[in-house]
Structures are given as structure tokens and as C-alpha cells.
């Protein structure tokens, strides 16, 4: 049953959600929009297509303590840190980012299941916002994402009709949330649905016109080994700064490092934090580093997204075409270039 709510009632909507959930939504601060815990008076911005940093940090935080230890004489006491306890809602997630959650699931929910990740996924209700006006840097369609429609796996999808938004719950979690909002959500009228249809139609057209519309990773064929030994890596990697911007803004990158915070001599805690395959100390081992130069590192990142990951996950690519790397890389070294060079256009 499709619902609807007028934007004038947003603050009402948010405070209602806030009653029973932690609510995270796109908030504008210093000219940048990012998902943040909602507070009365926040400058909520649902027009902005992609947030500065992807919302993956809600299901896979940049750093997360999962074990604390204390030494008592010769004994060592270890407690596991329990994961996310509160139910929470992320409102206004775009479909590219929503799809990235699925990709992370493939990694963290496969055996052995990642306890902390699982808890975060269970506690979270994802409310997406469809796109009608994709940008220059968008290429989600190249990865089979339909920005204007409702991806089945997400709990609730919404559509921005200007004055109001349409609300479609699709899972039990979605229903549960919708239940709680029944008093302010009204049923969508037929002309709303008609308007939605026309908007979706026009979006299909717009999408085709996008500069990156022709990007097609499936055109990347050839033996893994040939791709691995391809000339392009040398040329592409020459200018790489070895910073982690691309990986840390990327909604699908999911590598992490494990290290300890040394408390005083008796206590400490073990945490994991995002790591980047662009860093020179990534995969650093006792004997040295298996990826000695930036060439190997750059190759690893893109081979992983375009070859290894699909090989391991029924041909699904580890990219959702959000275009953040296109915007953020200080030296314009992004996945679009790689796909093109590998013949994906």
C-alpha cells in the first residue's frame, strides 16, 4: 500500500521516527551534506543526490572496538564488546548506496558471519529516496541499478514529488516503521501514482543521456591473467598519490585493519578500522609487502571491484556507480577510467 506525506510535515515525521528509532538522515553542515543523527533544527537536505561520505559507515563503522582485555597478575580477562543495541532508521539513502549494503552483506554475512555487522544490519531500517535527476558523474545504471524504482531488498522506498514524498514499505521492518507512522502517513492518491510513473519514465530518458550512460562493465572480457598483466595499470597508477580518499568515500570498499589500543600496562582494547589497499602499509607483513609499488595496489583495487568480486559472487560487480571517486580523487584516477581502458564502453 503506497503512502504519502507532505514535506511540510517532515519535522513531524522525523520526530515521530525519532521516538522509537535513532534517526539518521542527510544533514547539511559547512556546505557539505552527510548522514547524521537527526536533531531538531538540523538543516535536512534530501535534494542532494549523494552525500559527501557514503552511509556505509552505519553498517560498517570506520572504527569499531570489538574486544576489551585486562590483565590481572597472570590471568587475562577478555570481554566481547556487544554491537549495536538501538533500532535505527537511515532515511534518504539513494539506490546506489542502498545497493552497496547488499554487496557488503555478501562479504560480512557469509560464513563466518560477522557478529557486529549482523547486529547493525538487523537493527537498521533503510529508507531510500529514488532519483529522478541523476548527475554527470552518476553511472549506477551501468551496474543494473534503476535509480527511479524501488529495489526489492530495501525496507522502504520514497519518491520526491516536490511538495510531498511517496512512501512504499517493502519488508517487515519497513512495515513496522510504517505502522508507527500511520497517524501522519496518508494513503497515496491515484494521481500521485500517475505523476510518479511519468517522472520515472522521464528519468529513464534522462539516464540514457548521461555522459557515462554507455559505461558497461560486462564488456570487460578476457582472461583474468591478461587483465592482471595489462599495460594500463602502470600508466594509470603513475599519478596515484597513495591516499585513501577513493576507498574511504567508496560505499562498497570494505577492507579493514585490526589493531590494539594499548591502555595502561594492564588493559587494552582491540578494534578494527577501515583500511585502504592504496596505503603503502596495506598487506604489510613480517617479510615485507607483497604489493611493492602503487601499480600493484591500484591494480588490486580495481581488479577486486571488477574481476575478483564478481568471480566470487555470481558476477555481481563491487561498484554501484555512485561516482564519488570520480569527484573526490585529487588526481582524477577513478573506476570510470579503468572500465573504459579495460574496454567497458
Amino acid at each position: 500500500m503506497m503512502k504519502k506525506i507532505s514535506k511540510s510535515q517532515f519535522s513531524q515525521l522525523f520526530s515521530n521516527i525519532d521516538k522509537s528509532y535513532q534517526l539518521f538522515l542527510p544533514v547539511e553542515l559547512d556546505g557539505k551534506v552527510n548522514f547524521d543523527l537527526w536533531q531538531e533544527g538540523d538543516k535536512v537536505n534530501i535534494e542532494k543526490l549523494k552525500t559527501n561520505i557514503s552511509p556505509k559507515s552505519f553498517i560498517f563503522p570506520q572504527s569499531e572496538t570489538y574486544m576489551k582485555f585486562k590483565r590481572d597478575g597472570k590471568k587475562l580477562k577478555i570481554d566481547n564488546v556487544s554491537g549495536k543495541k538501538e533500532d535505527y532508521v537511515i532515511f534518504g539513502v539513494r539506490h546506489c548506496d542502498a545497493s552497496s549494503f547488499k554487496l557488503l552483506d555478501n562479504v560480512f554475512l557469509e560464513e563466518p558471519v560477522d557478529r557486529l555487522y549482523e547486529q547493525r544490519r538487523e537493527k537498521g531500517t533503510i529508507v531510500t529516496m529514488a532519483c529522478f535527476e541523476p548527475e554527470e558523474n552518476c553511472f549506477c545504471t551501468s551496474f543494473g541499478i534503476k535509480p527511479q524504482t524501488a529495489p526489492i531488498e530495501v525496507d522502504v522506498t520514497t519518491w520526491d514529488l516536490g511538495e510531498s514524498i511517496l512512501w512504499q514499505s517493502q519488508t517487515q521492518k519497513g512495515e513496522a516503521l510504517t505502522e508507527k507512522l500511520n497517524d501522519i502517513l496518508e494513503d497515496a492518491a491515484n494521481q500521485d501514482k500517475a505523476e510518479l510513473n511519468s517522472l520515472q519514465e522521464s528519468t529513464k530518458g534522462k539516464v540514457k543521456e548521461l555522459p557515462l550512460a554507455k559505461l558497461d562493465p560486462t564488456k570487460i572480457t578476457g582472461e583474468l591473467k591478461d587483465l592482471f598483466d595489462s599495460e594500463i595499470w602502470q600508466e594509470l597508477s603513475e599519478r596515484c598519490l597513495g591516499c585513501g580518499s577513493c576507498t574511504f568515500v567508496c560505499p562498497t570498499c570494505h577492507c579493514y585493519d585490526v589493531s590494539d589500543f594499548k591502555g595502561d600496562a594492564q588493559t587494552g582494547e582491540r578494534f578494527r578500522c577501515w583500511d585502504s589497499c592504496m596505503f603503502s602499509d596495506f598487506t604489510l607483513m613480517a617479510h615485507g609487502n607483497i604489493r611493492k609499488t602503487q601499480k600493484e595496489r591500484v591494480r588490486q583495487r580495481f581488479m577486486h571491484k571488477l574481476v575478483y568480486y564478481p568471480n566470487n559472487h555470481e558476477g555481481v560487480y563491487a561498484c554501484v556507480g555512485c561516482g564519488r571517486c570520480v569527484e573526490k580523487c585529487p588526481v582524477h584516477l577513478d573506476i570510470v577510467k579503468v572500465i573504459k581502458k579495460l574496454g567497458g564502453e
Partner: protein
Amino acid sequence: MSIEDEKIEGIDKVKFEPLVVAFCCNWCSYAGADLAGTSRFSYPANVKIIRVPCSCRVSENFVLRAFQRGADAVVIAGCHPGDCHYTSGNYHTRRRFSILTNLLEYMGIEQERFKVDWISAAEGHKFASVMNDVLEKVHKLGPNGKLRDDRWIR
């Protein structure tokens, strides 16, 4: 647990017990602190001294670490300019930490919490009074939360 035991555990929640970490150069200020002791000039036990060969051995990393770990004030004490045992060490200290002093204040850390001073081996009294002065100010300011590492329990 008796009050004293609690203190020994270092977790006296009853009242604010400031912690002052003082880096003292071996040749002047550490000796100055020794003289303060020999002449029984008292200053509170909240001051804990770390001995370094020269004030120029003190790295900005040490200072920040002390604040991270809950120091309410940090003091660097060296020979008076011109008297450095190593000729020029404290001249470098003077430049480096003039910049850091301002930078820390720029980060919002009150100047009273970070002090560099010159204390000679003969200035036991000055040592005590500098420490008392710092503590007095810190007591006014209260505990330092800035730069503090929440994972660390003091």
C-alpha cells in the same frame, strides 16, 4: 577501601586531583627540582617529573600524549637561555614550543595548561613556585577534556 587506597588506585572521584606532567632537563631544572627538595620547598604531589637530558629532547609528541592521557597541564623546564649544558638545546626548545604554545591555544587549550620555563640548578625556590603557580591556575580551570582520549582511564 580507605581513602588512601583509593588514591593509590589513582581514581579519587571525590574531588578534582589535577595531574601536571613536568619534563625537566637533567642539568638545570631537574637539579633545581632536587634543590627544591633538599631545601624542603613544598609543592603539591600532583606534579610528576620526567627526566630528560635537555629540554630540546622533549618532542611535541610527548606533550600531546600527556594531554591525551589525562594530564591537566604540561610543563617543560630547561636551563636559562645561554646556560644550556649542550650550548644551544634550549634555544631550539624556545622556538619549537613558542610555536606549539600558540598552536595549542589555537586548538582551544588554555595557555595556562602548557608552560615552558627556565629554571636553573640554583633555583629550587623558583621550581616550587612555578609548580604551585601552574597548579593554582589548573585548579581554577578544572579538569582538561580537550585532546583527551576517552578510551584511557586515569
